[in-house]
C-alpha cells in the first residue's frame, strides 16, 4: 500500500484480473475505488516515475489531486499488472522490474 501522498499507479481490476489476483493470494490488496470498480495501487518512487515518463511520453503525472501517473498506454498497464502478479507485490520493485525488462 502506498502512503498518503506517495506516487502511485492505479491499475484497474475487473473480474478476470480479480480471479488472477485471487489465485496469487493478492485479492485482498485490491481496493474498491468506485461503484464496484477495484484498483491495484502500485507504489512508485520519484526516480521510477521520471524513468517511466521518459519511456512513455504520453503518460502524465497528476501532481495536484490524485498523485497518480495517468494515461499510461494499455499494454504497459497490462505489463505492470503481470509483473505485480509475478512478484506478488505492489511495491516500487514492480515498476523497477518492469522497466528493467523493457530495457533488454
Amino acid at each position, binding site marked *: 500500500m502506498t502512503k498518503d501522498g506517495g506516487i502511485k499507479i*492505479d*491499475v*484497474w*481490476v*475487473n473480474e478476470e*484480473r480479480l480471479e488472477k489476483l485471487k489465485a496469487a493470494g493478492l485479492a485482498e490488496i485490491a481496493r474498491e*475505488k*468506485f*461503484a*464496484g*470498480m477495484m484498483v491495484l495501487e502500485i507504489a512508485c518512487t520519484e526516480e521510477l516515475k521520471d524513468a517511466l515518463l521518459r519511456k512513455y511520453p504520453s503518460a502524465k503525472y*497528476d501532481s495536484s*489531486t*490524485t498523485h497518480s501517473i*495517468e*494515461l*499510461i*498506454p*494499455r499494454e504497459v*498497464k497490462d505489463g505492470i499488472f503481470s509483473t505485480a502478479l509475478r512478484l506478488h507485490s505492489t511495491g516500487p520493485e514492480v515498476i523497477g522490474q518492469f522497466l528493467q525488462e523493457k530495457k533488454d
Partner: protein
Amino acid sequence: MNNLGHNDKPVVEHIMKGEVEKKLHGLPVLPVRREIAHEVISMAYGFFTPVSGFMGRDEVTSTLSRMELPDGSLWSIPIVLDVKQEEIKRLGLKPSDSVLLEYLGAPLATLDIDEFFSYDLGKMAEMAYGTRDPKHPGVKRTMEYSGDFVAGRINLVNEPVFNEPFSEFWKTPLQHRQAFAMKNWKNVVAHQTRNVPHSGHESLMKQAWFAANEDMPVDEIHTGVLVNAIIGEKRTGDYIDEAILLGQDALRKGGYFKDNVHMVTFTLWDMRYAGPREAIFHAILRTNLGCTHHMFGRDHAGVGNFYKPYDAQDVLKAERDKLKIKPVFLRENWYCPVCNEVTNEALCGHENQSQNFSGTLIRSILTDGVKPTKRVMRPEVFDVVMSSADKYGFGSPFVTNEYLNSRQPVFNLQKMEVLAS
C-alpha cells in the same frame, strides 16, 4: 406541420436548387475553413433560425451588448465570417457581390455580401465570454479572427454527404421534426453531449424524461429523449466523435432506453465554452430541432473556472420568457454505496459516502481497456467504444494527434464542374 422555431420564426432551408452549376459560373471563389463550413451547413438547414447568414456589425453589437438580434429575438453568440483584407482585394469583392464559398476543394454555398466591417476582437471576446484570458478557448478562437468580417446571407449549393457512422445520425431540423412526429412524441427533451455515456449520464436522461413528460398520462408514451451530440472542433483527449454517437446509441440498442423514447443525432458546431451564453445558444438550437425541453446540468458548456457551476441555469431562468423551450435543471448524479445505486445529489442524503463520477476516473478506466461494472458504464456502451477506438480512433477512444491528422472526414462534398472553369 408547425415548423416554427426559436422566437416563433419559421425554420426554413436555404438550399439552391436547379442548374446550380450554371448559376455558380464565374463567381469569385473564397475558400473557407472547417469551422465556417460547419456553420454554413448548420445555417442553411435552419439549425440557427432565425439567423440565416453571417452577421453584420449591428447584429454582432446587439448580440454582444443586449443578447438579442436587431429583431428582438434572444441571441447569445456572434456568428461571423472573418476574411483577410488581401483576400477581399484579391477577389475585388464589394457589397452586393455574390461569392462562392469553397470547402474541401468543392463548392459549398454562395454568400450574398451585405457588408464589410472590422471589429475590436478584444471587446468581442470580453463581451461574449466575460474575459479576455487567452486560456479561454472561445477567447482564443476570437483573437485568432482576422478582425475584418464579411456579412451576408448564405445559400447551400452542395449538400454534405455524411460518412458512416455519421450518416446514421444526421438529421436536419425539419427531419428531426418529422422523426418526432413519426414517434408520436409531443414532448422531447434534449440532452447536449460531447461524451460517451456513463451510468450517471444515463440516469440524468431518465430523470429528465419524467420532468419532460409533465402531466401527460403514461398509458401511452408521448415523450422522448433526443441525445444531440455536438460534432465540431476536436482537441486531444476528447472522446472521438464516432465513440460518442455509437456509445450513446448503444444505450437504446442495449434496451436501457426503449425504442420509442430515445433518439441520437448530432449538430455541426464548434463549442465556444461560453457557459451561460452557450447554454442560451443550445436552448435556441434545440428549439429549432423541435424539442420542448432541454437538460441543463452543473457547469453547462463551461470551461476551467471561468463560470460558476450554476451560472448557466441562472441566465436561463432570467431569459425564460424569450425561450420556447423549457429548461430541465438537474444536479449531478453520483454512486451511493448506501443507496446501492446511481442517484442524484439533490436526493441522496449520504454525502459522506457518495462517489462522484469524475471524467478523469472514467477516462482512466477506458484507457486501461478494462470493462467497467454496470454501475459505471453499460457493457454494450463499453464494447462499442472499444470497437470504435479500433475502427476509427487508431486504437484509442480519445482523440490523438493521429486522429486529428488522419481521421476519416465527417462528410464529403461532391465535386462540381464549376470550379474547373
